[in-house]
């Protein structure tokens, strides 16, 4: 016989904790958080730098401190958190199979499920970088775990491929630990990380950022000896003659994060090809009734504060789903289209007949746009126009549409970039 619980939260990182707390505060107290690691907090536990929490707590916290506040809130409420517990499968009927050391293999039936599994780093293999496969190549997050949690410095002479935020943070971290970071190469003509990280982690330490460059060869049989970096053209193809060899014993990769949706896929949840996360509606619900998603499993965020906020909404919506099952207005679903210059939007659809909260439209732009307007329109009617001095792909945009505007909508809405005119 399957155990029964009201709400299963899969993942005990910042998203899962905030979702569980919000659901609890909305009256659903029979919540269990399943965390595969031995501790709550997720990836924040290895992010010992500061800069977390400016939006949520109006102060700068380290990753573990930020996580600690949410862990404390969960504890105060007595929320059941099972660590060392990995969810192995999820069915469309919201039956989950969990395995753990202490409780073995269990099947649990949940009334609602919140997916909060986070994301993983794109590994070297997925980048198709040619060369040998020696010791000394790590994804930036693995190196972060080794340095910050295990007390091991992976190497002394470092090259970083990809300018994602973890890579930038690790450029500084490795430098502070006595390593020499020779360069950060980025395939794109713009950085994948936040401006503040470029300034605080590279510029402040004199580490060069090579835009439109990539690693074209890796040398070393057992241990990494060096990498060759070349400039790339506008199609990302290396330009012959621009190759330069960098002797190094460590190559860190910070080339993108991929939402971890294996469970979503086994359940048959529809995935948005642009985010690699579930295609979500305005309540952060997925294509399976009663299954919600938030945080980096839904789409990769830039700041954890936005994860917490989003997860809070997922928690409240899951609670509302459990409370109101079957008791809502006949849905009136309108689509959200990612128009010119927009890579994706979360949500993809809005139920205009049941909007009872303001709606956050979150998205990323495709390119660097200077002096542009972000426009949200429905048919011929512009609902909102937000002027921007600059927008960059590394920053998530967030636009709030009031529930009154939503309720009045009859057709789909489009988010787009309008260039010029500022």
């Amino acid at each position: 016989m399957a155990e029964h619980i009201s709400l299963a939260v899969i993942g005990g990182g910042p998203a899962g904790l905030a979702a569980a707390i919000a659901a609890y505060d909305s009256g659903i107290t029979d919540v269990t958080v399943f965390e595969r690691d031995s501790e709550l907090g997720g990836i924040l536990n290895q992010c010992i730098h500061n800069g977390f929490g400016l939006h949520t707590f109006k102060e700068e916290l380290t990753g573990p401190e930020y996580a600690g506040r949410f862990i404390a809130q969960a504890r105060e409420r007595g929320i059941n958190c099972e660590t060392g517990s990995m969810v192995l499968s999820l069915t469309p009927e919201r039956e989950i199979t969990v395995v753990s050391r202490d409780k073995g293999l269990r099947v649990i039936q949940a009334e609602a499920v919140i997916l909060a599994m986070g994301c993983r780093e794109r590994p070297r293999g997925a980048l198709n970088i040619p060369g040998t496969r020696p010791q000394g190549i790590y994804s930036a997050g693995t190196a972060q775990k080794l340095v910050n949690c295990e007390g091991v410095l992976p190497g002394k002479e470092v090259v970083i491929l990809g300018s994602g935020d973890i890579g930038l943070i690790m450029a500084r971290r490795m430098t502070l630990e006595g390593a020499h970071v020779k360069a950060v190469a980025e395939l794109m003509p713009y950085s994948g990380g936040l401006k503040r990280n470029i300034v605080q982690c590279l510029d402040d330490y004199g580490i060069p950022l090579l835009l439109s460059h990539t690693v074209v060869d890796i040398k070393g049989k057992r241990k990494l000896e060096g990498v060759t970096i070349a400039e790339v053209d506008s199609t990302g193809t290396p330009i012959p003659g621009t190759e330069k060899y960098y002797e190094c014993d460590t190559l860190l990769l910070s080339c993108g994060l991929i939402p971890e949706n294996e469970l979503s896929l086994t359940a048959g949840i529809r995935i948005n090809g642009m985010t690699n996360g579930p295609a979500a509606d305005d309540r952060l619900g997925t294509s399976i009734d009663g299954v919600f998603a938030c945080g980096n499993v839904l789409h990769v965020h830039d700041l954890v504060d936005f994860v917490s906020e989003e997860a809070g909404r997922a928690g409240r919506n899951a609670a509302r789903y459990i409370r109101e099952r079957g008791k809502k207005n006949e849905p009136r679903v309108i689509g959200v289209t990612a128009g010119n210059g927009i890579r994706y939007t979360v949500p993809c659809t809005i139920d205009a007949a049941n909007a009872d909260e303001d709606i956050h439209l979150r998205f990323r732009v495709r390119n660097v746009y200077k002096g542009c307007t972000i426009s949200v329109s429905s048919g011929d009617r512009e609902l909102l126009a937000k002027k921007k001095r600059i927008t960059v792909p590394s920053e998530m945009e967030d636009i709030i549409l009031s529930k009154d505007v939503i309720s009045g909508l009859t057709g789909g809405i489009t988010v787009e970039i309008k260039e010029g005119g500022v």
Partner: protein
Amino acid sequence: MKEIYDVAVIGAGVTGCAAARELSRYDLSVAVIEKESDVCEGTSKANSAIIHAGFDAKPGTLKARLNVRGNALMDKLAEQLRIPFRRNGAFVVCREGSEVPKLEELLRRGEENGVTGLRILSREEAREMEPNLDDGVFAALYAPTSGIVCPFEMTIALAENACANGAEFMLSTEVTGISKAGDGAFDISTDKGAVRAKCVINCAGVYADRIHDMICEPDFRITARRGEYMLLDTWAGNTVDRTIFQLPTKMGKGVLVTPTVHGNLLVGPTADDIEDKEDTATTRDGLANVRRQSALSVKNIPYGMVITSFSGLRAAADTGDFIIREDSGVKGFIDAAGIESPGLTSAPAIAEYLRDIVAGLMPLNEKKDFVPAREGIVRAAYLPAEERAALIAEHPEYGQIVCRCSQVSEGEIADAINRPLGATTIDGVKRRTGACMGRCQGGFCSPKIMTMLAEKQGISLSEVKKNG
């Protein structure tokens, strides 16, 4: 360490390990000398992982004979040694009507070699069985006895079973010279001291010519022929169910597309002769080639799901066939050289063949206590739910998932590290358990695996090696 061994096997790839396991049936002392820190570190670890049917090799060659025999031995071997193996069948496809005679030639050749069940399929029949065949495919040769295997587990299983039956493995031991003493025995110098043996079997892969030349007249050369591969996520594993070959060329069997026993999709290899016998680098051109050529047989390969690429080295002899014989000039020195494809398939048959040669040199008496079976590492995730639950109840460490992508538990990793001939490196754990082999490629689990290896070896985390 014995004063003198009956047999010293040089090289712990699949050939050497299969030979050691076969010889361990008999009342012989067997030493296996391997320069790397683990078994299965050379050609055996990076290949197409196919148990070939046997239609490719020219009738009358050792390759043909041992391939077919090896294929037939696999079912029992896989069961005894717990090696993941599946007869998934294979196609050889052609794109032109004018090439059908080449398929018919392969079919005739296969039948002459003793391969059963071969038949030619029309475009429609082939597509019915494999919907993702490229639209340009005209016809296919179908070989139902072709199979897929895990080459690491096969080699490791053979080694473990040989070890359990008394064979001694000397790892991280490189042979530097071989000479013959007055009593007719061999003095094998290594970087770890001398080993004496009455008989030497050279299973040194791409280095077989160098080992041979240490004591024999040079009479063959081994060229490392590099092949590059791409491995795709298990989400892509059902693109094809059978192994899809293209018509063979002089350089090899061409680019194949195949599921693996672990559910991934494997595409490759290229074929490039190279100078450096250890150059397992992949190249931009090579990987592009794999991609381009695969499109001639299979469509819809989701290359966005590549999780890793690698290259392996075929030990290609200039004679074109396996070289398995006692040297004509040096009594007691036996070569097993030029073991390129279908070497993995042939390994169990090569072992029998070597045993027969050894039988001509010394009496072979079967051991009464030979144990033919090996207990594999229990893969909890592959057990039925009830068995898995029972295992965790008894051994809670099987409930602690370390590698999330392949669902490998702490119990499995501990077993891989603690068993005889156990893993001493991250790659060793990977090849024994499948941890780090999934879509995150060790991003999450490698620190934990490093911790477990460091604890076992009493070293610091920074001393833990990925390989070697």
